[in-house]
């Protein structure tokens, strides 16, 4: 199975501060399910930002879908970003848009016909249990509801990579289980999943997932971090 993400000696520095990420090297198999763990401030969110192309590294090489994205021209980035779904830690819902319009955002950005948007968005709203709250603005939704909208928005475009930063932080354990079930279903359809979380029971829930641990900006024990065999290898 080919690598969909490759980091080689990646370093990230904000301004003149010391490096937030240092010498990070790893490779994610296409169709794998990965958890990223580490203490607060270990650099999980920074690593995810590099992954979903919100940031370029200070050094090193990052390859996504087989192409070096560090030197990629700006005008080619949107095409790559449309292949990546992101659940932000702070949700980043557009405040003046309804839950429905927030979820429809990636489809509209990708230029999907308006008539083709309603069915998947309604289905997704129902799936995250917000079927009757489609017209609600984010400010009127609870933290958990906002997170569910953010997750629905991230997965609606059937991304090739799904990146989620603490996606279960604001939902109850039942919803957390349902979300993981959705992620696993997406994973079975071929989406590579990367979830940053502190929630160890959640990690244990997904059989065959692999785990990377960040410690002070470095991958702890780089040779032994992939704790479980990749799902892609299971299949082979």
């Amino acid at each position, binding site marked *: 199975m080919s690598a969909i993400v490759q980091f080689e000696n990646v370093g990230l520095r904000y301004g003149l501060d010391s490096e937030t990420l240092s010498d990070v090297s790893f490779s994610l198999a296409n169709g794998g399910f990965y958890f990223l763990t580490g203490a607060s401030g270990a650099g999980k969110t920074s690593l995810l930002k590099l992954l*979903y*192309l*919100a*940031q*370029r590294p200070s050094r090193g090489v990052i390859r996504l879908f087989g192409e070096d994205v560090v030197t990629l021209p*700006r*005008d080619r*980035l*949107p*095409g*790559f*970003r*449309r292949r990546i779904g*992101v659940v932000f830690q702070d949700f*980043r819902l*557009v*405040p*003046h*848009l309804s839950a429905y*319009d927030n979820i*429809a*955002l*990636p489809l*509209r*950005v*990708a230029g999907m*016909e*308006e*008539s083709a948007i309603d069915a998947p968005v309604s289905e997704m709203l129902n799936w995250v249990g917000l079927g009757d709250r489609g017209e609600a603005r984010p400010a009127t939704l609870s933290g958990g509801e906002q997170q569910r909208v953010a997750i629905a928005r991230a997965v609606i475009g059937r991304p090739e990579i799904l990146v989620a930063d603490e996606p279960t932080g604001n939902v109850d354990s039942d919803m957390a289980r349902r979300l993981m079930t959705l992620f696993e279903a997406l994973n079975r359809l071929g989406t590579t999943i990367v979830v940053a979380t502190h929630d160890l029971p959640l990690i244990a829930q997904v059989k065959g997932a692999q785990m990377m641990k960040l410690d002070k900006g470095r991958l702890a024990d780089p040779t032994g971090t992939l704790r479980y065999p990749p799902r892609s290898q299971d299949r082979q």
Partner: protein
Amino acid sequence: MASRANRKAAVAARNRLLPEGRVAGPMPWIIAIMMFLTVLSAAAGLGLSTAVRSMSADLAGRASVQVVEADAPARDRLAARTLQALRQTPGVRAADPVDPAALADQLRPWLGDAASSGDLPVPALIDVMLTPGDTDAKVDRLRRQLAGLSPKLRIEPHAAFLLPLAGLLTALGWLAAGVVLLMVLATGAVVVLAARGAHDSHRGTIDVLHLMGSTDVQIARLFQRRIGLDAFLGSALGFAFALLVIILIGLRLSAMGSDLLGAVGLDTRSWVILALLPILGVLLATLTARWTVLRALGRSL
């Protein structure tokens, strides 16, 4: 039908990506003021240019011959001889004596009734119209010819009287054009500031759109549409008020009955230029907004 409805729905959905309402606060009002002043300046410039053209056409090839003789019967005899000589001169299309009564009427505001009493030696005037082309040389020839006829004859081309006024009107016309240019630059600057402000205040939404895969052009289109609408509103308002003022000034000028002020008018070409100003204003605002937002987006990843 369905596809049109679909397109409308898509446009409406896309337009919702920025909050409803104006994006740049008081921009329509500022644009309205700018457009008001621009249209007035342009109208002044175009009106003065029409006046200069009309004056030049009226004065080109015309001259006055003065018969400066204190003795009235001798003046009348000399005027008659001069008139006859002028009418036989090549290059003179027409020569007509100015009615002494009309001349006295024009002098009355300064000289009172003495102008027509005969006590004051008012020169006799002959209005000369030359054939077209090479006016200066023809006037010089006439001057020499009249000097041979009598030393009491003088000739003055009309253009010489009004040359300083025509120069002043031309300068005022250029000044108006300069004001229009400054207004265009100021409008562009206002739009740049408004677009930057709008971009900054919607930074969160823009970041999300970027991370979803929106291109810079997709995002810039949202802003240029909103700012274009604001500019349309402001331009229409400013143009309407300016039009009202121009019409009122035109009515006042006509009522004054002055030949000089009456020449300050707007022909069809001028009205077309004025009507194009709001359209150009909207175009300028839209393109400036697009350029500003694209530049700002270009600085992010």
